[in-house]
């Protein structure tokens, strides 16, 4: 499934033009992106939560050379699936 498939479904359901359907879908994802970019979590009930986590710097090693390196502090994005999603993925099969 790609964005185009989602746009198609919106188009079929709403009967607006393809172009407009595309714009709304685009806008939904870009708002989610902007929010995460600002460091704010996005919670979608029934689907899951997108969580921005701060990681401290730590020492690591290059597994190939054994060389010690410093892994810098960073901010990462994780996804925590909702109970509902997990349940749905394991009942129909």
């Amino acid at each position, binding site marked *: 499934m790609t964005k185009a498939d989602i746009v198609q479904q919106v188009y079929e359901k709403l009967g607006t033009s393809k172009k407009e359907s595309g714009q709304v879908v685009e806008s939904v994802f870009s708002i989610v992106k902007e929010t995460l970019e600002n460091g704010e979590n996005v919670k979608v009930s029934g689907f899951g939560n997108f969580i*921005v986590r701060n990681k401290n710097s730590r020492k690591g090693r290059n597994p190939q050379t054994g060389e010690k390196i410093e892994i810098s502090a960073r901010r990462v994005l994780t996804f925590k699936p909702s109970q509902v999603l997990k349940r749905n993925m394991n009942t129909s099969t």
Partner: protein
Amino acid sequence: MNKSELIEAVTNKSSYLNRRETKIIVDLIFNSMAAALAEGSKIEIRGFGSFKVKPRSARIGRNPKTGDKVEVPAKNIPFFKVGKDLKMLVDH
């Protein structure tokens, strides 16, 4: 930000959709993604990330309270891989 705030933001950005219509769209987007994952399909959203289904095999677990062995059945779990763009934007 939760789903209703997301719906609000999408409505404000659009010039022709009302709140009721945006709610239908936002629900449709996430429901169709959930349905695709339930089918075992992969989802790829350019510029955002991709969702994959990973199988977990059955295993013997233990009830941590009593120590009893319990059979944990095989299951599928959703897995999200952050897209390169978004990964960089979140870290900046």
